[in-house]
């Protein structure tokens, strides 16, 4: 059961890290060498968004996995973490 959760979490982290790194590398390259290209800043922003969304995504996946295992204590704990992360987004927009 733990192994399944570990793999699910690992997959979210791996996909998030690779995707954001590709976006950031392309965005940085464009910004430095083709400053006129509008795609540079867009790619950089997208890369940062994906980077910051990755831990949120792995907490969300954990909530789902614990719910599937009917481990309600950990459903509650991981849900609290998810709410705290969403609260930081609210704090960022104020």
């Amino acid at each position: 059961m733990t192994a399944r959760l570990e793999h699910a979490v690992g997959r979210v982290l791996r996909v998030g890290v690779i995707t954001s790194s590709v976006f950031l590398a392309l965005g940085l390259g464009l910004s430095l060498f083709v400053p006129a290209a509008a795609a540079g800043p867009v790619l950089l922003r997208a890369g940062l968004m994906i980077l910051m969304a990755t831990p949120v995504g792995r907490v969300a996946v954990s909530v789902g996995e614990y719910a599937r295992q009917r481990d309600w204590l950990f459903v509650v704990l991981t849900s609290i973490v998810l709410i705290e992360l969403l609260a930081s987004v609210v704090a960022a927009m104020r």
Partner: protein
Amino acid sequence: MPVVTLALALIIFGAGAVAGGLGALLGIGGGVFLVPFLNLGLHFPIAAAAAISLTTVIATSSSVSAGRSGEQLINLRLGMVLEVATAAGALLGGVTAQMLAQSTVQLLFGIVTAVVAVVMMGRLGRRNVILDPSIDPGLLGGRYYEEESGGVVTYRVKRMPIALAASFIAGNLSSLLGIGGGVIKVPALNAWCGVPLRAAAATSAFMIGVTATAGAVIYYGHGQLVPPLAAAAVLGVQLGSWSGMRLSARASARWLKLLMAFVLLMVSLLMLARGTR
């Protein structure tokens, strides 16, 4: 805000690689090196330095933890319990930053890291592991295969209130100073809560992604994050942490503890020097 040039991007990429390598070895995000470098070395405003550093902490945490999945070294249950405290601390860090003078926070940080370094050095010869695999690790304990001793290692978690308090403080300092908070959590979990250093480092590295996200999102929302420089730092850190991870499996626990204590003392001196200026 700093002007982005190719040279500056390259310098930050290199600094990120060094910070990421050391961070992966020690189970900390590497921000503890990057923030002083950007702030004292390159004269970035502390908010810009912290914002860049927090994005690298997220990247290190994600890539190190993804690479370790399947090894059972990360204590997922313990990590998720402690994340409730670190995320709350990180959220409140934004509020606390408004109420405390920066120098007060730096002095506090210097004192805390010095104390932790001394505790760490006093425990160099101790090991927290039970080598009998039939022992029940309990609700939050764990077991993993350790390369150094060539056997399955079991441990129980003691003194949860201390682990929760350390995680809360670590989350708070993470947002305030742009570090992951592993410098607080790893020694506390190891010295007081019975978690072996390797498991404490892996679990902390797993948690700091969540901690740093809570802080980074707030800096990003307030326009204090320079995207191209964050990208250069993140990519450098990826390279560094990838290399650091390959070394960490071979490094001895004693050597890791000594390196950690040395790093903590350096950070402490830097913070005290800046806080008393």
